[in-house]
């Protein structure tokens, strides 16, 4: 009859074990210091070329100079990064402007720390592009009206860029259809004819162009040239408890972005080494701008258009207050 007792003890033990696991899974907001006195922080981001400066900053010791031991964690899409920042899994996270605005508009306790990237003004130089098959019969942007475009996340920055770009060019964007696909799957879908055009970002743009797909336009360059397209943010909780770390991260990022702007070859090199991008692709892919821009105007512009296009239901009220540090 010991079996029943043993069973109950096992059950109780499992209960405690389970509870402990669950509790530890809920992230805490205290900062961790490692053996060298550097603060350990992890940054969540997406495996796109805009993240390369982070690795550059680690390699060049810029983060170390500011007292930070940085670790980069890749997530599937910007929408997955923000929850990880809020739950404490990552201390900082990258998300594009529209995702940030969506979260902030819904009242999530997020704070913007620093700018990440911006589209070029010339569209050949930009790291995003809309591609079509050469035999599609679509030669100009106006041919895309009413077509099915693949974006990596629905109701997100791709749509905002494309809709505004079309509006600027006088093309109707109401009839557009959208299909959500991860970047690596886009070329195949285009080939199969599942979609008419793909909105794709480096490092997937260059290989797709190498496959013969035609670059029709760059929506970002058209719609929001040189306006910040993504930010690093942190949770309100973390910022309140660790203002120095947040400040250190921001100051480090100013240096990192500057450095990346002036050393594009090093950016390409680190993309190959740390991000597993093919050397050939890294050589030929286009890099976005890495600005140090705290201007709220870009944010306001994005918010305005996103709400207008029905992508955001509400915009934040006080834009200045969204930033973690005001200098």
């Amino acid at each position, binding site marked *: 009859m010991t079996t029943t007792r043993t069973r109950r003890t096992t059950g109780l033990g499992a209960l405690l074990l389970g509870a402990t696991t669950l509790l530890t899974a809920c992230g805490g907001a205290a900062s961790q210091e490692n053996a060298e006195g550097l603060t350990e922080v992890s940054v969540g981001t997406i495996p796109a070329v805009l993240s390369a400066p982070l690795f550059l900053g680690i390699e060049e010791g810029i983060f170390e100079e500011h007292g930070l031991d940085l670790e980069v964690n890749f997530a599937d899409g910007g*929408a997955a990064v923000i929850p990880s920042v809020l739950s404490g899994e990552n201390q900082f996270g990258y998300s594009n402007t529209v995702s940030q605005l969506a979260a902030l508009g*819904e009242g*999530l306790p997020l704070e913007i720390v620093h700018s990440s990237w911006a589209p070029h003004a010339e569209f050949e130089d930009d790291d995003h592009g809309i591609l079509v098959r050469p035999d599609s019969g679509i030669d100009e942007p106006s041919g895309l009206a009413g077509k099915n475009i693949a974006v990596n996340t*629905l109701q997100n920055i791709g749509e905002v860029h494309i809709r505004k770009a079309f509006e600027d060019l006088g093309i109707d964007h109401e009839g557009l259809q959208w299909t959500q696909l991860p970047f690596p799957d886009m070329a195949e*879908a285009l080939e199969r004819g599942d979609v008419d055009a793909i909105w794709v970002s480096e490092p997937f743009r260059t290989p797709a162009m190498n496959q013969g797909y035609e670059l029709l336009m760059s929506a970002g360059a058209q719609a929001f040239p040189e306006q910040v397209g993504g930010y690093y943010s942190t949770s309100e909780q973390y910022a309140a408890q660790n203002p120095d770390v947040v400040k250190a991260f921001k100051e480090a990022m100013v240096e990192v972005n500057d450095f990346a702007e002036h050393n594009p070859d090093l950016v390409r090199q680190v993309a190959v080494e740390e991000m597993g991008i093919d050397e050939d692709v890294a050589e030929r892919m286009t890099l976005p701008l890495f600005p140090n821009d705290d201007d709220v105007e870009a944010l306001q512009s994005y918010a305005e258009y996103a709400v207008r296009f029905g*992508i955001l239901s509400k915009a934040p009220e006080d834009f200045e207050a969204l930033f973690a540090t005001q200098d």
Partner: protein
Amino acid sequence: MTTLTTSVSTARGRAVIGAAGALTALGAWFMLSRGSENVYFPALPAILDETWEYWRTAEGLRNLGASLTTLSLGLCLGIVFGVAIGLVIGQLTFVEQAISPALEFARAIPATALIPFAMMLFGVGDNTKIFLIALGSLWPVLLNTADGARRIDPTLRDSARAFRIAGFQRQAFIVVPAVLPRILVGIRIAIPLGLILMVTSEMVGAQEGLGFVITQAQATFQLVTMWSGIVVLGVLGFSITFAYSLLERVLLRWSDPRREDA
């Protein structure tokens, strides 16, 4: 205390206590979340509002319709194939012996592990969903049918042979009614599985449906909409399971009036 214990022993007593329990639970949720500032757990009134609002719009109905359509199609396919193959396996011993290990292996594969496989074949869309739901719901039906077919009362079998009833007639009029209770058990297990596959495939490989709405709402941080989707899904799951249990009871009584309810 004694009144409580005695009241539980009558069906009506239990129903009353149960109703009280349900109301208390709902009331508690309502009161606790009413002034909720927490973004992740919005106030129940807000959720209910949104549920009433969104799911009656054209878009909401379209998503709901898409989910129900694919679920029904997938389940039908799974049931039809499950019964057909199950009958074969159950009645032909040599087929069963031959296929059994392969079947055991295929069955052990968690249905959701096949999502990438289905997406590879059918891309993003309804066919992926239907395929997955059919594949997942096939197994419980197949196994239960086979089991039932294997255990058909020899008296029935012998009578059929004596009256020279064979082939299709035998299957339709003797085998299937005899196996029906087991088939119904299989379907009962298949339904929640189908629901899970429906939601999961909508979260990954679809542009429409309940799972899609829930995931999209989460991606755009519209948590109230997300919760309304969860509520609708809960209600759907409950209704379908409940409706089926009624159907099952009716069918069982019709197939064998002498039978006591299992």
